[in-house]
């Protein structure tokens, strides 16, 4: 472990569970407990528990909170009801994506959940743009964030909530909303969001109660219902769901339109940073587009492999791995918008070889639609 990397309050739990640790965004985090494929299918079939406390969490409050944030994002916040959430992005003046994030409206302001590796950059960006009547607090260090993901996630919570005094069952929380509740006698904030393409919740909790909550979630009645899962499975899960990873699939040079994130942009909502650039880009249309690729063979497509069409290099793979559900190599990457049609044949240059691949619809995996392979 590097001396300067941070650990979460669950670090000893991870080590005790036999996790292999990795550096991610300045944090020492569990990469895998058993095997990435096992943990991936655990989330698709049952339920996985992730420590995602490395994600940055800011509270922005005060009378000018909404106006302050409105300048930083292309999404209209004005209709966001209390306890609703929205996926959006911070943009630079060129319309490039500084970071992607989720904003939850709370009774006293807004909760921002940002990527770990961009937390410091985001914190400066937010605090430098606060209007006089707004305040910001970085709550990353004194709270924890867990993700309980999978078809059994709500069942697990119901089981735990039922046993708690004064419990609130989270079953009724709409998608992309949050609600306060109690699980295993610990007060928490349930957020009906995730990064796996599966149903589930993210749970924000005071650091003081975190070990009890972690243990309680892993101890639900039937063994094997909930298993701890690491960042390795989180990456393959989000890739199957074609959810972009900032720093790989999207970055400061990516326009939301190119990344198929046009839905987060509202050009009529009033001025925001990047507004002029996006207005111009919207008029011309994107030059390149994010596409999903499936390889014909079995060798994996990897980050930064070149994509060729008709023998000519036209773009790059931004994320590539193995899809445990499709049992095939899958990838995200950019190609010119003129060649982004589904079923287009491409080649991917991977370590000196040319691999055949094809553009396919995204996401690669759709919950409740894509059949799972038989359990072995």
């Amino acid at each position, binding site marked *: 472990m590097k001396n300067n990397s941070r650990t979460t309050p669950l670090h000893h739990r991870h080590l005790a569970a036999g996790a292999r640790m990795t550096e991610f965004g300045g944090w020492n985090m569990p*990469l*895998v407990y058993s*095997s*990435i*494929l096992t943990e991936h299918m655990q989330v698709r079939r049952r339920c996985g528990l992730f420590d995602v406390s490395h994600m940055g969490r800011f509270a922005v409050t005060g009378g000018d909170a909404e106006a302050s944030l409105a300048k930083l994002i292309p999404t209209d916040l004005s209709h966001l009801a209390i306890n609703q959430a929205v996926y959006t992005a911070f943009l630079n003046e060129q319309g490039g994506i500084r970071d992607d994030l989720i904003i939850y409206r709370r009774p006293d302001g807004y909760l921002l959940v940002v990527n770990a590796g961009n937390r410091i950059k985001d914190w400066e960006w937010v605090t430098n743009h606060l209007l006089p009547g707004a305040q910001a607090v970085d709550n990353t260090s004194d709270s924890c964030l867990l993700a309980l993901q999978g078809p059994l996630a709500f069942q697990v919570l119901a089981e735990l909530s039922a046993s708690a005094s004064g419990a609130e069952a989270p079953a009724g929380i709409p998608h992309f909303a949050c609600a306060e509740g109690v699980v295993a006698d610990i007060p928490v904030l349930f957020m009906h969001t995730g990064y796996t393409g599966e149903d589930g919740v993210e749970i924000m909790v005071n650091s003081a109660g975190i070990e009890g909550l972690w243990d309680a979630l892993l101890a639900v009645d039937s063994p094997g219902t909930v298993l701890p899962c690491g960042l*390795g499975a989180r990456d*393959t899960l989000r890739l199957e769901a074609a959810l972009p990873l900032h720093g790989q699939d999207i970055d400061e040079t990516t326009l939301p339109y190119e990344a198929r994130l046009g839905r987060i942009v509202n050009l009529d909502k009033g001025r925001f940073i990047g507004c002029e650039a996006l207005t111009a880009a919207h008029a011309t249309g994107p030059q390149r587009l994010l596409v999903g690729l499936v390889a014909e063979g*079995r*060798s*994996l497509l*990897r980050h930064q492999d070149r994509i060729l069409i008709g023998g000519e290099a036209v773009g790059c793979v931004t994320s590539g*791995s*193995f899809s445990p559900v499709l049992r095939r*190599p899958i990838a995200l990457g950019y190609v010119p918008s003129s060649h982004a049609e589904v079923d287009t044949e491409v080649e991917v240059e991977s*370590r000196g070889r040319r691999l055949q691949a094809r553009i396919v619809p995204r996401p690669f995996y759709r919950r409740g639609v894509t059949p799972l392979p038989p359990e072995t």
Partner: protein
Amino acid sequence: MNLKEFRFHKEHDWVRVDGDVGTFGITDYAQETLGDIVYVELPAEGETLTAGEPYAEVESVKAVSEIFAPVSGSVVEFNQVAIDAPEIINESPYEHGWLVRVKLSNRTELDELMTAEEYEAMLAQTEE
């Protein structure tokens, strides 16, 4: 399976000799480090392998790894099961997850390799 019959190369490869044929594979440590193996590329029958040179490629979800020949020889058989179901290498690295069988061309190379005890000692040292 008795690891005493195996000889080990420092790149975490093993060979088990039976007559003039050696079976090659990767060690338990290697499969554990790689994680879930999803793709294997093996040399065809008749290909000549040189001690210390890469002869195969193993890809896991996390990484690609070249596999080194512990001794020289020519391939007489490759493990089709490992190609069709690469997870066998994770599950059984010393037995069903073997990679190739090779007709050895220079048996004295075996003397350069480690015994199981020596290999374990090397691992213990790297982990310190």
